[in-house]
């Protein structure tokens, strides 16, 4: 029960640590994806505790899992992917503009240009 949530928490914290601590901007985007994945897993895992069959009605289906977290997470996954795509495009643009993928180097080079 609780070990799964501890693991999801670890995944979340690793993703957040990647955003804050890693200087490479592509790794920051990885971190954002990890955080999103952790939250999606959490919603679906916890929602599945109250039943044991997929939420598709039909003959002989009695105890379905909670369909609301699944529907919410469909939306959240798509939003996360779109934001990652936009972030990657921005990262490529920054690389073309400054020649580096390290956020500190990028900041310094952009300031000195301006």
């Amino acid at each position, binding site marked *: 029960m609780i070990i799964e949530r501890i693991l999801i*928490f670890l995944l979340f914290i690793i993703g957040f640590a990647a955003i804050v601590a890693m200087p490479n901007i592509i790794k920051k985007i990885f971190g954002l994806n990890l955080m999103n994945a952790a939250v999606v897993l959490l919603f679906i895992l916890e929602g599945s505790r109250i039943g044991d069959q997929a939420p598709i009605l039909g003959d002989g289906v009695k105890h379905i899992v909670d369909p609301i977290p699944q529907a919410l997470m469909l939306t959240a996954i798509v939003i996360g992917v779109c934001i990652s795509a936009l972030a990657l495009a921005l990262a490529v643009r920054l690389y073309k503009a400054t020649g580096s993928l390290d956020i500190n180097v990028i900041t310094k080079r952009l300031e000195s240009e301006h």
Partner: protein
Amino acid sequence: MKALTRMKIMLTILILGLAVLPVLLSDTPWPVQARDYLFETAKSDTGADNTVSAIYLGYRAMDTLGETLVLLVSITGTMSILINLGRNKVDEESIGFSLEPEKLPRHSLRTNLIEVVASKLGPIVLLFGLYVMLYGHISPGGGFQGGVIVASGIVFLALGTELKTKLTNTIVLSRIESLSFLFLVLASISGVFFESGFFGNPVKSLQNISPNFIILLNIIIGMKVGTSIAVMCIAMMGGSHDH
């Protein structure tokens, strides 16, 4: 990294970890009201067997509209950023585009094997994507899932050299994309004229609810998602050959 920065980062991670932990580890049993209500009424309200489709295309269709908007805006932004990498001025007039092709020789990574297999697999993947789109109301699937598979099918077609179809032409794809967005907005407003409110099922007053509205929404969303992601992928690959 300096010691001060390292301490700041440690402190940030520590505080946020502690703030999130009680929410993650709470022991309250998961609520069952929603599941029970949907088990009873999802089929009669929306006509779908797949309760997840009933939620995100029926009860909470506004969230799906918002999600489509996020997709539209982010693909627009990504395309405008990537197109201008090869040029200096923004050219508003062009409705077709191609990126500056990669500096590698054109076929160094695309072997004959990839081209032949991809062009043969392309139509099969498209067919599978259409199946997932259209059967979203009775089995797992739906507009988004099917749309992404359709997009990958179009990318397969673009990777192969045997076919020069209209389907990989970016102008045609962007026309389909903008038309499907218009149809989505019109479909959502149609409920207004049929007395069931914004995003209501226009055929709600009938006795036997059929899932036609959900199928229609699935098709529209699938086309939108498929064509916009395909346009982005083809543009990243360097434009279409026969442009």
